[in-house]
């Protein structure tokens, strides 16, 4: 997984379909990222923050009981143990450092489940930056806890009230905000999506988790590599991070798991929204359709362009799982391993559980991208007496 082409594309996907006002800002951001990423002072400051503040490296956990039950050797990359509870902190610390370096005083972000919003609010607090987070009204209702966390951290949470009132609309509103505030604000985009250079830059900021996982597998496994690497995919940032550690090894299968109600790669066709050309759920006229998933973080009709490219070239596959399968996986990991996963991450586990016969005796690495604390309230309502 290398650099995109000069036109910001991975194969035929990506690009920069944004209002003219933003083009100079994206060019400036790209130049600043290229320069910072080659600057040892920047990367060592980031590494130091990832260690002393975010808690990296995150461990690799072998799931003994669930492995036995499934007949699959199951390993988890524990991004749930990072500060703020998910992989999102990796990207946000990188972008906040970059924003400071570019002289920006304010971060704007979108959020779905609230994990990226909380991470952005956290980084803003750490660096003394202003922070406004756009969140769909529907998501604000189902992720109240994260709304409060963001406010506690000093961020303003701005309700996105148009369209489906979920992540897609929060991205629209964040981009509209940035069009108006581009001179002093940095758009801290939360996934490997949007206009170039975001899909590439965000993947690079998550590369650390793939690199760690690859090295931890080498220490733990006799053959050095897992047979299959699995991650959930909404926009696709945690998947991009873990895939980046293994994509150069053709013997490792890469699997990105989409929600059945938001399967951009599985059920979409190429389209243009949020600045990128990528697989997209849309109607016959090109109107973007609304995703519907139990997890707010995957409730997104599009997908990062590099995933479209990996799908088209056959390097990765993108199956989907249903909400019921996800709930089963959520309970199963809690009870066999004492780890409550985020509903997003439970998608990756759900696929492994469903495909256990195909995966028999294989070593499977799942990116446990986040912890489930934020989902407990929602699941209490759903499961209640059934437990």
């Amino acid at each position, binding site marked *: 997984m290398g650099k995109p082409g000069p*036109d910001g594309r991975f194969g035929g996907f990506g*690009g*920069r*379909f*944004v*209002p*003219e*006002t*933003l*083009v*100079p*800002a994206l060019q400036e951001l790209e130049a600043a990222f290229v320069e910072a990423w080659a600057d040892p002072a920047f990367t060592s400051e980031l590494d130091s923050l990832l260690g002393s503040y975010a808690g990296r490296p995150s461990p690799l956990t072998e799931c003994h009981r669930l492995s036995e039950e499934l007949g699959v050797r199951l390993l988890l990359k524990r991004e749930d143990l990072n500060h703020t509870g998910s992989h999102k902190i990796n990207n946000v610390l990188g972008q906040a450092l970059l924003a400071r370096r570019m002289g920006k005083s304010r971060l704007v972000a979108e959020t779905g489940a609230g994990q990226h919003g909380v991470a952005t609010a956290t980084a803003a607090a750490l660096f003394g930056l202003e922070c406004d987070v756009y969140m769909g009204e529907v998501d604000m209702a189902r992720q109240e806890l994260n709304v409060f966390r963001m406010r506690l951290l000093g961020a303003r949470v701005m309700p996105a009230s*148009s*369209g489906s009132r979920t992540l*897609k*609309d929060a991205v*629209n509103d964040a*981009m*509209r905000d940035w*069009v*108006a*505030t*581009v*001179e002093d604000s940095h758009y801290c985009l939360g996934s490997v999506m949007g206009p170039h250079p975001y899909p590439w830059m965000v993947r690079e900021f998550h590369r650390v988790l793939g690199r760690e996982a690859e090295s931890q597998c080498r220490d733990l496994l006799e053959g050095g590599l897992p047979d299959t690497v699995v991650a959930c995919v909404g926009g696709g940032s945690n998947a991009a991070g873990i895939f980046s550690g293994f994509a150069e090894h053709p013997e490792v299968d890469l699997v990105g798991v989409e929600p059945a109600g938001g399967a951009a790669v599985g059920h979409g066709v*190429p*389209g*243009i*929204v*949020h*600045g990128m*050309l990528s697989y*997209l759920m*849309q109607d*016959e*006229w*090109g*109107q*973007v359709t609304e995703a519907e998933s139990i997890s707010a973080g995957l409730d997104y009709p599009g997908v990062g362009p590099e995933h479209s490219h990996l799908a088209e070239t056959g390097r990765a596959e993108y199956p989907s799982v249903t909400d019921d399968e996800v709930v089963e996986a959520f309970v199963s990991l809690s009870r066999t391993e004492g780890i409550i996963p985020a509903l997003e991450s439970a998608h990756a586990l759900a696929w492994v559980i469903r495909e256990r016969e195909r995966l028999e005796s294989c070593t499977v690495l799942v990116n446990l991208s986040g912890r489930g604390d934020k989902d407990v309230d929602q699941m209490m309502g759903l499961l209640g007496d059934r437990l």
Partner: protein
Amino acid sequence: MSGEGTTLQAALGRRTASGGKCLVPYLTGGLPQAPPADWLTTLSAIAGAGADAIEVGVPFSDPVMDGPVIQQASEEALGAGVNPHSLLDRLGSADVGVPLAVMTYANLVFRFGWQRFAETLADSGVAAAILPDVPLEESAPWCSAADAAGVETVMLAAPTGSDERLQAVVERARGFVYAVGLLGVTGERSELASTSRVIARRLRRLTDKPVLVGVGIGSPDQAREVCQDADGVVIGSAVVRTAMATRSPEAVADLVGEFRAALDAG
């Protein structure tokens, strides 16, 4: 080719040649009006009230360059069942009397097919197109299709652009150069942004093509003020807000007439 013969630019050129200022109102295509009137009646009323050309929005689900008024109008028109095919079909059967420019977003055109969309515009008698999320770097597939079909592509120029970038934008622009008046999305503002006249002046130094300022022009006074530097204005949210509030072609025509009078008074 900077076009004497091209329809939109020719129409605007006639206005400026006589020392006048150009007025291009915007209406969301398919926006319901009070029966028996419909949005085509409103288009004709706008033309009759002194518009030099009209921008017709083809509504998209995710209009990222638009503020609340046009977002709401787009949602409403989509809810009423409008789609690009039916909308262009109706435009093709109408004779509004002034050149039309379609304004829409990249995905509707991409899904339709760049070439097929350009040809359909030409067949429907639409002179020009404005695609606010297709900047210069991404414009080649569309522009070659549009050029081949004889459709003028209006390009947006923003206050954030360097002179070098503005130069490249005006060279690629056909019909007119759409000067984005401020940092922000479409919508009325209580005062004219200082950036409006600055961007108009910068562009006028670079091109002989008509320079029209849009985004943030909400009142006749603001239109007159910005036209001290610009060749004209695009007015969107003010028109659409009136069309939604009154559902009346006459009320919209009255508003457009006020802008016309302000520009003619100079």
